[in-house]
């Protein structure tokens, strides 16, 4: 089922001289896990902003084409409605948190939507539980670590029960260990709760093994869109500013040296490559 679509979408920020998005045609099915990649400034963030209505309602500019989120045309519905379908998590959680307690932060959007008290309580409990941060409930967001803050930010979005979670480089300020934990949680949201994920990221090594689809954007245009394994097998994505995980480089070189492209496949993680080498060793 199509949950998100864009048709011939162009966008130019007011005051900008170039189009930030060019002729974007995209169809996303429910339950997909999509990585948006490309160099800084390629249009990843701009595209995400089109999915929760920040564009065209918050950012001024010229928009051509349309975006439909769960069937709703974003031009006709305000962000507070759209964010109940597609919720956004930003790079810096500090920009998203402001209440005195974690619980109040997670409840905030729901209170604004005049949701009944009992339901707010139920949804907040649920969101804290699936993010694994129930013990942080009474803490001040100010005293949390970066990774914890980012989980609270996601919980406050999840409380809106969106079908789509949009994440704009959510791990960039986290240390690797916290980044890994956050990614594990995002993967669980996708696999266990069937939440559709669109995540913009520079660091692909932790994410790639879980992604159903990789979209590479260059200069506002979608240049590659498909199965991550196939894309990395056939293309040199570095020229688009996308870092290929080291294991993919090892595997590519190994194929050249061994001279048989058919058997190795394209491993996306250390585990996969080790398994391939092991099989070859003991075959």
């Amino acid at each position, binding site marked *: 089922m199509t949950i998100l679509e864009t048709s011939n979408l162009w966008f130019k920020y007011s005051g900008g001289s170039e189009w930030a998005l060019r002729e974007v045609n995209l169809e996303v099915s429910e339950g997909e896990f999509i990585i948006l990649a490309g160099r800084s400034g390629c249009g990843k963030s701009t595209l995400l902003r089109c999915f929760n209505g920040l564009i065209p309602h918050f950012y001024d500019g010229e928009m051509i084409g349309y975006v439909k989120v769960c069937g709703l045309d974003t031009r006709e519905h305000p962000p507070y409605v759209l964010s109940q379908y597609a919720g956004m998590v930003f790079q810096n959680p500090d920009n998203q948190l402001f209440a005195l307690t974690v619980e109040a932060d997670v409840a905030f959007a729901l209170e604004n939507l005049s949701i009944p008290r009992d339901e707010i309580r139920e949804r907040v409990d649920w969101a804290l539980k699936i993010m694994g941060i129930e013990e942080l409930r009474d803490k001040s967001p100010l005293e949390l670590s970066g990774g914890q803050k980012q989980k609270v930010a996601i919980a406050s979005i999840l409380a809106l029960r969106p079908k789509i979670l949009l994440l704009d480089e959510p791990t960039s300020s986290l240390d690797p260990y916290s980044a890994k934990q956050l990614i594990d949680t995002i993967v669980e949201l996708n696999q266990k709760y069937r939440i559709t994920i669109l995540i913009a990221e520079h660091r692909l090594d932790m994410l790639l093994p879980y992604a159903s689809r990789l979209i590479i954007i260059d200069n506002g245009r979608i240049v590659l869109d498909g199965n991550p394994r196939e894309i990395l097998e056939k293309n040199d994505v*570095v020229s688009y500013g996308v870092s290929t995980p080291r294991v993919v480089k090892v595997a590519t070189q190994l194929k050249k040296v061994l001279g048989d492209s058919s058997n190795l496949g394209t491993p996306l993680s250390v585990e996969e490559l080790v398994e391939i080498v092991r099989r070859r060793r003991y075959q």
Partner: protein
Amino acid sequence: MIVFENVEYVYPNGFKALNGINLEIESGEIIALMGENGAGKTTLLKHLNGLLKPTSGRVLIDGVDTRNSTVASLSRKVGIVFQNAEDMFFSPTISEELAFALNNFNFPEEVVKKRVEWALKFMELEEYRDKSPFLLSGGEKKRLALAIILAWSPDIIALDEPTVGQDILQKEKMIQIIKQANQQGKTIIISSHDVEFIADLNPRIILMSRGRIVKDGSAEEVLTDIQLLHECRLIPPQIVSLTSRLDFLGFKPKLARPEEVAVEIARRLR
């Protein structure tokens, strides 16, 4: 030369961020400070130009005790690019932003002009010279912040998490800039938990955890100590994870280029 002697630093709220730091950095070294968020990396960097003064112990920059010096005079020698580059901007245009510190240091006008031109060109920011620094993208802001520091040419350049939000092409460029500045004799100190970036740079690594130095050695030594990295909540570079799990081919954990590892795997498979 930079010397830390038994440095402790306690923030006003009672948090002890540095707990007995002893460290010597020679001129012309490249150093990476690694460790999880909160390990004390940024606090340590802030001691280099006197923004923070030790609660006990002392920091010497080329023999000068930072407690007896001002931030203004130390800054001539030590330039710090903070993680959030935007925090240092306030001028209406990018060229004015670049000129500000130079004017403050009383460089002659024609030198200021020349260095601003050089910095704009070097960091590929020429086309934005008359724009507000706040209109730049995240990656461009980082480049501007670094350009500002490079323009007044301090002997010691400290970079706090320079790769956050940077794509792979910008990271490659960052490595070039760091190496180039180093070849000109600059001491470079980088705080980072980007293990792949640091593995590429291959510097001396000082690994920190909870305000202490837990290991000080070559990139190879530190980044292949998987157990210790784990204790410091860092994840080893992919190449190290890979080689550590190829023990059945006789591999030991090591840091190498992907191409070398591939050739080595092929050789051992034959």
